[in-house]
Each structure stands twice: as C-alpha cells, then as structure tokens.
C-alpha cells in the first residue's frame, strides 16, 4: 500500500483560496433558537404514535408484564428464530427467558464475533432491540452501538421489534440531537455509531412508487412500555 503520510496539500490550497497563510479559529456562530417543543407528555406520546403509523410502523402500548405476550402476537414461535441485542432493558425484563419458556427459538447475540453474527442474523426471522431515544416529531427511534449488536439486530432480520420506555420519548429533534451531540463529545475516543430509524426500509426508485422493505426490515413494531 502506498505511503499516505502527511500530505495535506489540500489544506494548503484551502488556505490559499481563502487568502490566508495560517489557520485562525473563528468566533463560533451564535446558537440557533430551536422551535418550542411540546411539553405535555400525553400529547408527545400521541404525536409519536401518529408519526410512526404515518410511516407504516406499528405501535403497541402495553404493561411491562404484557411485553412477552405482545411480542408473541407479533412473532409467534413457529415464525422462526428471534435475535436479541445486548440490551439492559431486555435483560431486566427477562425477555429471553420468557420467550424460550413460550417455545421460541432465541439467538442471544452476546459475545458472538462479527462474521457469525452477520450470517446468523441474516437468517433470523425477527430482531428485538431497545432504543436510546424515541422522537415524537417524526416517529423516529435512535438505536446505538452502546447496546451491543443493536445496529445489526435492527437491520438484518425482516422484522424489527423495538422496545421503548415512555420516558425515552422526546418531543423534538433538537432535544435528541443535543443529547447525542453531548454523548459524542464525551465519548470522543470511542467508535460509537447511532442509527435513526423512521419506519421500515423503503424505496421509491421505480416510478416513485413506494415499496417497503428493500434492504432493511419490512416490518417495524414499536412496543411502548411504562
């Protein structure tokens, strides 16, 4: 492989184009006043549900002890293997144990190396993750690599089931972006990734006709627990 080295001729060209020889840190722009966000929690929840449904996701509201029955309604044991990410919420709620007790075949992704993980997930029938944030404004879920395997579990199987706590639902994009930005600043040394997920995978590349489930999941189910 060729030596890359310190070849920042481009940066010199940038300086020259801007008419300077040394880089000076500018005065940052003043902050932008974000639009006022809805603060009533019931209105926020309603907006979240509406927006997820608008992008063809399904929302299920249930009590914590109804979680596994709700999952089984979406994904009965005979539908195939269910993969779960390394989520604290899922282990706190003993999701794996109860699914197995109900006859499901469960793939626990903990500690599986990348290649095996990818192959196995590609064959799974559904993937269950929790989320870092949910966003009412657009019906968006934010899933991150802080939850081991969550980015792949929410991507490769044809069905994605996301478990969201009510307290994780925020009204506006600004709140979520600012939260993620703060985390990114603090975790500057780590390879942290986040995916925003808004509805199932879609394309309109053929005659602008909407087609669901091109590369990612064909179904997105959001289960909201208290």
């Amino acid at each position, binding site marked *: 492989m060729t030596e890359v080295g310190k070849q920042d001729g481009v940066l010199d060209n940038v300086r020259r184009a801007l008419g300077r020889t040394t880089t000076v840190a500018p005065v940052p722009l003043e902050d932008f006043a974000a639009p006022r966000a809805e603060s009533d929690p019931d209105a926020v929840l309603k907006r979240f549900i509406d927006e997820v449904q608008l992008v063809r996701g399904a929302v299920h509201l249930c009590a914590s002890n109804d979680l596994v029955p709700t999952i089984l309604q979406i994904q009965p044991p005979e539908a195939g293997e269910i993969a779960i990410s390394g989520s604290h919420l899922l282990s706190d709620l003993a999701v794996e144990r109860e699914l197995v007790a109900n006859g499901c075949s469960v793939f626990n992704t903990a500690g599986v190396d990348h290649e095996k993980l990818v192959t196995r997930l590609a064959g799974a029938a559904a993937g269950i993750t929790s989320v870092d944030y949910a966003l009412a*404004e657009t019906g*968006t879920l934010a899933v991150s690599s802080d939850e081991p395997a969550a980015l792949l579990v929410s991507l490769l199987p044809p069905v994605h089931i996301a478990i969201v706590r009510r307290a994780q639902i925020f009204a506006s994009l600004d709140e979520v972006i600012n939260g993620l930005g703060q985390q990114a600043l603090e975790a500057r040394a780590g390879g942290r990734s986040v995916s925003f997920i808004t509805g199932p995978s879609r394309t309109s590349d053929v005659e602008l006709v909407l087609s669901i489930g091109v590369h990612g999941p064909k179904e997105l189910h959001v289960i909201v627990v208290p």
Partner: protein
Amino acid sequence: MTTNLTERSHAALGDSTLQRALGKATNTFIERRREAITSVDDWEALRVRARRVKEHTINHLDHYLTQLVENVEAQKGKVFWAQTGEDVSRYIIDLARARGVTSVVKSKSMATEEIELNHALEAARIVPVETDLGEYIIQLANEKPSHIIVPAIHKTRDQISDLFEEKLGQGRPHEVADITRLARQRLRNEFLSAGMGITGANFLIAETGTLVLVENEGNIRLSTQVPKIHVAVVGIEKVIPKYSDLSVFLRLLARSGTGQKQTAYVSFLNGPRQVDREPGFEFHLILMDNGRTRILADEHMRESLYCIRCGACLNVCPVYQKIGGQAYGWIYPGPIGAVISPQLQSLEQAGELPFASSLCGACRDACPVQINLPDMLLGLRAAAKESKIDKKAGEQTMMRGYAFAARHPKLFALGGKLMRTFTRLMAKDGQVKSAPFAPLSDWTKYRDFPAPRGGSFRARWKKGTK
C-alpha cells in the same frame, strides 16, 4: 463528449417515454415538497440559518477541516487528503489490494460518480456493486444517473423489468414489489460477501468527527455495518461545525429532497467500530478536493459549495423538467449542475451548461440554503463569453451595437424606428416566423417573434398617452 447539449436536448424532447417519466416525477416531487415544508413552523428561518452555517463554515473551511481530522484520527479513523479523483481511486485500490478485497459494496454517492470510481475499480479487477436500487438499475443498464436523489428517474417500470430479466436471468419481475424483492435478494449476498463498503456522506461534524449519512433503503447501514472496512469519499465542503447544527439541516434535507419529514434512516458514525473488542475493523475518510478549492478561491462562485445535494432545484427547473438529467452530459444535472460542472470540469468542457436555463429563479426559491443560482449562471455566461467559449460572434457584435446605441439617444431612436419597420415588413399575422440571418434566425428557429404594434414608448411618453 461526442454530442452537444442542443443535440442531446433534442433527443430527450423526442423521447415520449422519457417525457412522461420526467413529467410525473418532477410534478410528484414538487407536490410532496410543498406539503412537507408546511409541517415546520418557520421554513424560511431554517433556510436562513442553514445558509449562515454554511457561509460561516466555508469561510473558515481550513479551521473546521483541521478540527474534523483531529477528531477522526483521535478515534482511530484514517484520513487521506485527495487532490484529484485519481488520488481517491489509487488509495482505494491500494487499500483493497493490501487487504485482499475483491468485491466492494457501494451506496449511492455523487462524489464517487463524479470521479468515476467504478471504472477505476473495474480496471483494477475489483468488483464494485451499487446497492441503492436506483443506482443498481443504472449500473445494470450501464448508464449514468439522471437525478441526484433518484438516479433511475428516467426509466419506466417496464424498462426496468426488461433489464432485470435480461441481466439477472431470474425471470421477469412484473410489479414494483417484485423488482424490489429481486434486488434485495441479489444484493443481500453481495453485502455478506463484500470485503469493503464505500459510501459518501451528507455531513461531517467537525467538533466530534462524526460522519452523517441520510437514506431510505438501508443499503448505507448495510454497507457501513456489515463489511469490516468502511471507506467514505467526501468532498471537503461537507463539513459543518457542530452536532447541534444537524437539526436544522436534517429538517431541511429530507423535506427538500423527497418531501419526507425524515428519511427512514440516518446514520451517525464515529471511527471504526469495535476497535477494542474485535480486530479487523477499519474506517477511512477520504477528503476530496477535485476542483473544490478552485471554486472556493472565487468569491462570487463560493456559495455553490453550500449545496447539500437535495435535488430540489432540479425538480422545479423548467429546463430539467423537459430534458432530464442525462442530457446535461455531466454527473451533476439541473441548475446546480449547470453551476458546478463547468467549475469542477472546466468552462471549455462544460461551458454550454450555464446557457441551459431560463433564469426564472425557481431554483433559488427552492434551494434550502438559498444559493443564488441564477446569479451564478449569469456570471458563468459572462465568463464563457469573455473566454470566447461561446462562439456566437454575430450575437456579440449585435449586443455591442445595442450597447453603443443605448448610450446615444438619437441613434437609439433611429434604430428603433428601423427595427419596427423591418419586423413589420417580415411579419405574417403579427408574428415574425423566421428571421433572415443569424443570430436572429437561431432565435426564430424555435419561436415566433411578435412584431411591435403602435409607436415607440418614447413617442407615446411625449404625447402623454399611456
């Protein structure tokens, strides 16, 4: 290029299938965008802010690029500065060879289209597979994309069914859902076997070294999460200062592009994944100049670097609506293409593009970062005239004559009188159908010129009639 813009436009105008596809697509996009922008409280405030952020960043590009690179490298990402497209291709080919990679999955990227990376990879016996459905179609058809965000906008479902039947040999997919399913199945295998994923980026965040990618299909998530090596090829103008700047841009981009409030997926990537847990993961960021610092050096044209590649200016452009993307002849079509192609290439090569505009201003009104496209098109036209690239000598002489007459009132009055008499003599039913000599005859070849009625404005002004 073997044909010129006029010839390519004629071909496009004579293609009734293309005309139907373009009409439907551009109208649908305009309608969806109009609806989407009503879902935010103050659209104009977002545009003003986005423009300010871009203006600030571009004016301090050296600072923000330096900050970005420090942060990417602190997260064990590798940064490569590429002056030209060849530099980019060479780096990727060398990397692929060093890692024994023989096939790469690519997600839609205008930057890699711009430098024709696929040709270079193929020549080096590395198989590039386009994974965005539209790009996959274009790659199978061996064509160039015709729209920034919907590359196969010019193709009908029937044409795509034919193409899949011929190239994939798995029968004829009839419905759109069948086409999608077949593509999913074929491309899944490519994702699982590729050794490298290549993407572009919509935004680079300087303060955190984060790469932001916006999409609907999930192929970008797969390209960046499945192969262990991720290479991003990004123009240097894509950097923005802060994470919090994203909320403005994300609100603008999807609404302007596809008319969605939010695309299905947005990926925020920081460095290689799992550096500590498992070896073999790599992230390479290639920061590409390829003509951008030339644009940066020109203060008048600098704002063309604010573009966030949403495609809104294409959809509203009366020229794009009729000739489509491929007739422009360069990778970036529409008003923004007519502005940046002559600058990224050269005025000699693409100097005819700035003339493919009616200067109606619809592009400026649609642009989420308020780029003054008509003004820059005029600037490029003037540059083309001065460098004699536009060789219509008759037109130049005529305009010089007009400029002289306009400064001499008596001559102007006489000239006006002559023109009125002359056009009336040539007119039939009040319209001049064909002028006797160039460049006037070039004009009347496609349009009629109404002969003036009544006296001159100056005569009427004197008489006090209105």
